[in-house]
């Protein structure tokens, strides 16, 4: 009797395993279709990234999902930064010229590739928000950011429907602790009303260590997603052919692509 039972058990276990495996495969395909798989999903640690991203994405697509905003009195007196500004000749030349020669180009999957000077960006409708910014190391501060919503600039360029990522390239070359930085956002975060191309901080021009002339501010994610020293924005349907194909430079150094945690 026990052999019959164990055979039955074996068959049920086998069937359950097969059902589980095909269920997982279907789930993975569905998740990919609805943009729930992050670019750095590979490997055992990628399982955790994928679970976090896939579970938070639908929640955060809700329009009421807004980073908390604070009063002016809560702005931190000390707003530290990680890493010095770029040492590159290009950056130093732009800095010396007050960024008059700086332009932000937008290209890739857009109807109208374009570029904007700092003065042009400042003429667009602006938004100021006082938000909490936490470094993934654990420290944090509250500061006011002023800038043009990224969605406004993307709409000017006319994003094509098949674009899935907004990729940011920076002026950072040497002098960065982790080399040249680049990164990307998915469309949910790129078009979020609090995602800014920020040129001002605490009522002044964005200070050099905080990313002058323009940084992106993504207050629903950790600080490292708010890339500084922007130079170029590319819209794309895949990030596989950029760098190591992980969506940003941070996963190449062991950090995650998604910073919502």
């Amino acid at each position, binding site marked *: 009797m026990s052999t019959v039972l164990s055979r039955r058990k074996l068959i049920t276990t086998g069937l359950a395993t097969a059902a589980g495996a095909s269920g997982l495969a279907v789930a993975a395909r569905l998740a990919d279709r609805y943009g729930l798989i992050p670019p750095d999903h590979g490997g*055992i*640690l990628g*399982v*955790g*990234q994928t*679970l*976090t991203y896939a579970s*938070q994405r639908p*929640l*955060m697509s*809700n329009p*009421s*999902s*807004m*980073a*908390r905003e*604070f009063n002016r009195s*809560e702005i*931190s*007196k*000390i*707003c*530290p930064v*990680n890493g010095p500004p770029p040492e590159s000749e290009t950056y130093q030349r732009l800095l010396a010229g007050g960024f008059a020669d700086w332009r932000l180009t937008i290209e890739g999957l857009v109807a109208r590739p374009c570029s904007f000077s700092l003065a042009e960006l400042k003429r667009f409708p602006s938004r100021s928000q006082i938000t*909490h910014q*936490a*470094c*993934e*190391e*654990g*420290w*944090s*501060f*509250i500061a006011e950011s002023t800038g043009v919503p990224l969605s406004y600039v993307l709409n000017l360029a006319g994003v094509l429907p098949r674009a899935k990522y907004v990729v940011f390239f920076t002026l950072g070359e040497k002098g960065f*602790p*982790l080399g040249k930085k680049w990164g990307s956002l998915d469309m949910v975060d790129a078009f979020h009303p609090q995602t800014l191309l920020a040129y001002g901080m605490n009522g002044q021009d964005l200070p050099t260590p905080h990313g002058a002339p323009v940084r992106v501010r993504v*207050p*629903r*994610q*950790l600080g490292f997603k708010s890339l500084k020293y922007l130079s170029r924005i590319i819209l794309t349907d895949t990030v596989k052919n950029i760098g190591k194909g992980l969506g940003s430079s*941070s996963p190449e*150094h*062991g*950090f*995650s692509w998604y*910073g*919502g*945690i």
Partner: protein
Amino acid sequence: MATVESAHLPRLATPISDLDSPRHSAVVRITHWINTLSFFGLLVSGIAILLAHPRFYWGETGAIGTPSLLDLPLPFMRGGPSGWGRNLHFLSAWVCGLNGALYVVSGILTQHFRKSLVPAKADLAWGSLWRVVSNHLRFKPLGAESSLSYNLLQRLTYLAVVFVLFPVIIWTGFAMSPAIVSVFPVFVTILGGQQTARTLHFFASDLLVLFVVVHIAMVCLAGFTNRVGAMITGQINARKDRT
């Protein structure tokens, strides 16, 4: 109902059917070891994250240059191990959370919590509470019934770990996530700030580590092989138990 021969087991008057039934159910055993593994992952990665900034604050913000609540005498390893640490921390947290949910749901459905962990009202009187504590402090032998059921201190400790410490650690973890608090701000506002959440997360994890240390020490005192065997096979040999 047959009782065990007193010649063989002098202090035992437990029905033999209870002796034969497993000490730990399969769900408790499986979730225990998955939890062990995920807790180890959380601990190692938690230390890696801590080393990036071994300093704690109270309120919303805090950084080098602002007053701190607690400065641990550990090296700052900025840009160091916190990358993989964070990735491992969240992978382990997913395993720990899903496994914990399975444990809690099954514990409620099978009435494991009510039968094995919730103490009897009479046991909660100060007198019996004091007796258990003083017996522990004097290392008084526990008696053979200890291999078959949990004593009052064990019950209260396990309940506190499962229903206080783990919820606190999950809540404070959520409170540190900018994504989660953008949807549910109450996670952080009720605590008074993101740095407060980080500090409480650290204190709660300290208590969990303390629990694990005492837990392992007690297993060693009660007979390591027998107790660990019971958590693997479900069977305990009350005769071999060092009581």
